[in-house]
């Protein structure tokens, strides 16, 4: 099976299934440094995605765009906007295709990362979800199957959290608490790690 709208549907189902406890955890984490709404964004976002998962268009590009729309409908939080941005950037890469090879997923992540940097104005190293994306992109290099990719992603995610834990946040709401953020995981990074775990 190649990467298709069925893959997207499955991903939504897997994450949506576990989003409530993840949301609660992320609200707590975001509340330590920010406004504590990341979990709300995640829960509402995946609720919306669940609502459209059975009606995704066959065209992968349009499927990604439909997901972006669903995500943007929930709130004005940074994570939601950046996730939607990522989905749109990925969508543009696969416009007019119904399937792509698994090995192409890495290129989609790369396009997503670039768009998120352009949209959000943060840099790599600022201790945001961008840094998580970055290590995922690195680790997926050369991986061919979903199984290989999941294993690599999980260990990269754990490693990245560890690497950044003792650095300060340099962007967004958490920047004001730069000192306080040392020793704490970035909520956006952690959210991605938790989502990856959903495929285990």
């Amino acid at each position: 099976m190649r990467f298709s709208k069925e893959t997207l549907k499955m991903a939504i189902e897997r994450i949506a299934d576990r989003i409530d406890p993840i949301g609660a955890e992320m609200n707590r984490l975001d509340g330590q440094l920010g406004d504590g709404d990341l979990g709300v964004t995640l829960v509402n976002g995946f609720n919306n995605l669940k609502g459209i998962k059975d009606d995704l268009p066959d065209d992968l590009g349009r499927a990604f765009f439909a997901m972006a729309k669903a995500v943007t409908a929930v709130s004005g939080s940074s994570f939601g906007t950046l996730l939607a941005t990522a989905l749109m950037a990925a969508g543009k890469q696969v416009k007019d295709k119904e399937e792509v090879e698994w090995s192409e997923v890495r290129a989609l992540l790369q396009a997503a990362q670039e768009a998120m940097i352009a949209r959000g104005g943060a840099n790599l190293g600022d201790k945001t979800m961008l840094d998580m994306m970055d290590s995922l992109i690195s680790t997926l290099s050369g991986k061919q199957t979903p199984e290989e990719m999941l294993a690599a992603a999980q260990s990269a995610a754990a490693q990245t959290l560890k690497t950044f834990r003792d650095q300060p946040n340099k962007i967004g709401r958490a920047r004001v608490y730069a000192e306080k953020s040392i020793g704490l995981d970035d909520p956006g990074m952690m959210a991605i790690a938790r989502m990856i775990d959903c495929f285990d």
Partner: protein
Amino acid sequence: MKKLINKPENYVDEVLAGMQAAHPETYQVGGATGRMLHRPKPVAGKVGVVSGGGFGHIPVFVGYVGDGLLDACAVGDVFASPDMNPMLDSIQFADQGKGVLCVVGNYGGDRMNFDMACEMAEMDDIVARKVIVSDDVAAAGREEAEKRRGVAGFVFVTKVAGAAAAAGQSLDEVETVTQRAADNVRSVGVALSSCTVPQAGQPTFDIADDEMEIGMGIHGEPGVRRGKLRPVDEVTDEMVDMLLADKPVSNGSRIALLVNGLGATPVEELYLVFRQAKARLEAAGAVIAQYMVGNYATSMEMAGASLTVLHLDDDLEALVKASANCPFWKV
């Protein structure tokens, strides 16, 4: 909180319902989430003009849906950007095959969400472009003009965009002249009292009974100077000085002038501001080719006033003076 409202969480949607009930020939509530106001029918054969932004500034943004103004407008919560979806709804509604111009206030969320909406529209082969309004001279210096907030200058920029589109100009032309309006509009305000976001329930900021803040933003963003309230002529002088320091007029410069109330200030007082502003601007050589006095860009029950000057060229003057019609403004 002393407001004539029902539940704060229903405030925006109920006001929109009231606006449609009062003006169904101009306003229709639409979009998947009911957060778009649009004309009953799109006007064929012209470039679409849309906007969107936080609520609580009526007539800005959504009140300017009308003839020769906006075709549709996305509506956020109070002082919060709408999400991308009603913006996309607005673009899709307004597009009649000639493209759409989005007039957008310079706020992070509004810009980002309109960026996404324009990209989304592209997927449907709609060409949508953005012009950013950043007219508040108090928000940043000249060297950082791109950081300035968008305030009442929105009214003139929207007027120009709407009139250019109504005149049958192409998207390129509408965009160019609207950008020129945005580049040539300057505003500054003075706040005397705070507003209250319904869901917050408390005034947004504190200000003493004898204080004013010159340059305060329309959500209560800090201004350039807080001080004792002075006679209106002196307050007006200070605002005119700021506008002219940022972009001077020379003898015979033609301008459009908006003396705007922030919501709770009696119109009587706006005429006092107008009287002095007119005298000062004319003394500086300006010719006031068009002007308005009233509540055109508000912050709910905030008391205070703002001055907006649009520096005109022949095209801008013709567009500002072209006929337009919405429930809050007939030209």
